[in-house]
């Protein structure tokens, strides 16, 4: 009959081997999970438009109306020399200015927006545009609308007691209609 010490020594050796095996498996699994997550982020970053903004730009929220690109007269849609369109807008308690954005269909568009007071949400229904307008920073988003139509643009980030009343609109018109409008005015809106 083997002694008790021998017996327990065997058990100890066996336990250590099992533990090492389990530990190796879990370590492999967690490394694989990390690699998959990094890979997913990279894949969607490259093949889908879910990239975070590449450049950080700043703007003083208290003086937006005094100078710079967010003065009242410079807000709205601008037709650029290369045929693309830049839309500038601000969010404030409790409206977007311009209240109604007008843009052409099938045209590369850059939206540049910021907040004049607190954090607001910028979301265009039916598109993948959904970002925050953070006071102090400019949100810069590329977008393209495929067809004319109307989209609502509610603030989707609680911004104060009147937040639920903060709704804007985006009107997509066809290219010719937009160019005709742009011929007589440098900054376009669909505010009536």
């Amino acid at each position, binding site marked *: 009959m083997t002694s008790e010490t021998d017996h327990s020594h065997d058990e100890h050796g066996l336990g250590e081997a099992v533990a090492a095996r389990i530990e190796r498996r879990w370590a492999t699994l967690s490394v694989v999970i990390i690699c998959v997550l990094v890979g997913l982020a990279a894949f969607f970053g490259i093949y889908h438009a879910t990239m975070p903004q590449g450049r950080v730009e700043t703007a003083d929220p208290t003086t937006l109306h*005094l100078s710079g690109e967010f003065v009242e007269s410079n807000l709205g849609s601008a037709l650029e020399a290369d045929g693309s369109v830049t839309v500038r807008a601000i969010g404030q308690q409790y409206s977007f200015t311009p209240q109604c954005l007008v843009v052409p269909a099938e045209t590369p568009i850059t939206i540049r927006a910021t907040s004049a007071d607190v954090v607001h949400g910028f979301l265009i229904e039916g598109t993948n545009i959904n970002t925050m307008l953070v006071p102090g920073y400019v949100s810069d988003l590329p977008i393209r609308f495929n067809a004319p139509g109307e989209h609502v643009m509610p603030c989707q980030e609680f911004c104060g*007691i009147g937040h639920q*009343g903060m709704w804007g609109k985006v009107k997509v018109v066809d290219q010719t209609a937009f160019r005709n409008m742009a011929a007589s005015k440098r900054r376009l809106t669909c505010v009536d």
Partner: protein
Amino acid sequence: MSEDELYSPRNPWFSISVGVTAAIAVLSAIVGLIWLPLLQPDLKLSGIWDAICSAAGVPNLPRPAAAVPPTFKTSNVVVTPEMLTRQDQVSIGRGATLAQRCAICHGPQGVSDANSPNLAGQYAAVTYKELNDFKTGARVNVVMSPFAANMTDQDMRDVALYYAYLPRVPSSQLNPGLPPPAIVVTGAPLRNIPPCGSCHGEIDIKAGSPWLGGQSAVYIKAQLQAFAAGTRRNDISEQMRNIARQMTAEEIDQVARYYEAQP
């Protein structure tokens, strides 16, 4: 196993796990800071260092694009929530003297029946901003503009603090039992009209928005119509025009009559 052996390169578990972690960190850094930014043609990066800076969030000054200049005078007041919220006895005293010339229209106690705005108890930031806008021409009124033209910045602060110090006096139309119209209580969210009180003081105060209780209905109606028509444009970045423009004539009427009856 002692501590020494555990944290030593001779322990394969230790060296392998540290090695793998470091490799992941380096790989992620290369992917996130260099490879992905360089894949975005819109960013127009000038090199690897620029890519690393932009990905790390070093702020860029906005590119100088030619802004379309305004065709009319806009308000140049920088409104902050802290603005003129501190009482100052010297200022109030000076303001009381200066305010004597305002009494013809605004009443000796800051209240009158002349359909000019009641100023007693008005937020100082509001009176100061409007005086400033009259002075710069962002807001125009045949009577007020010449008065404001000769005031210094300190004069405007003093007058504003003086009127803020006076107690509010209800109008002769006072009727606190009047039920508030829906447009005041809930606004009309889909038309971009929040409840009035979310800025004007009953629920919350947005700096620069006036207290409306006890104002003449004629005055409130005229201002809402002017905002809606775009003949009054001194509200910074259209904050009030956006709302007034969406209101119906009937709603403007209801709001004006309701606020006149409030304390």
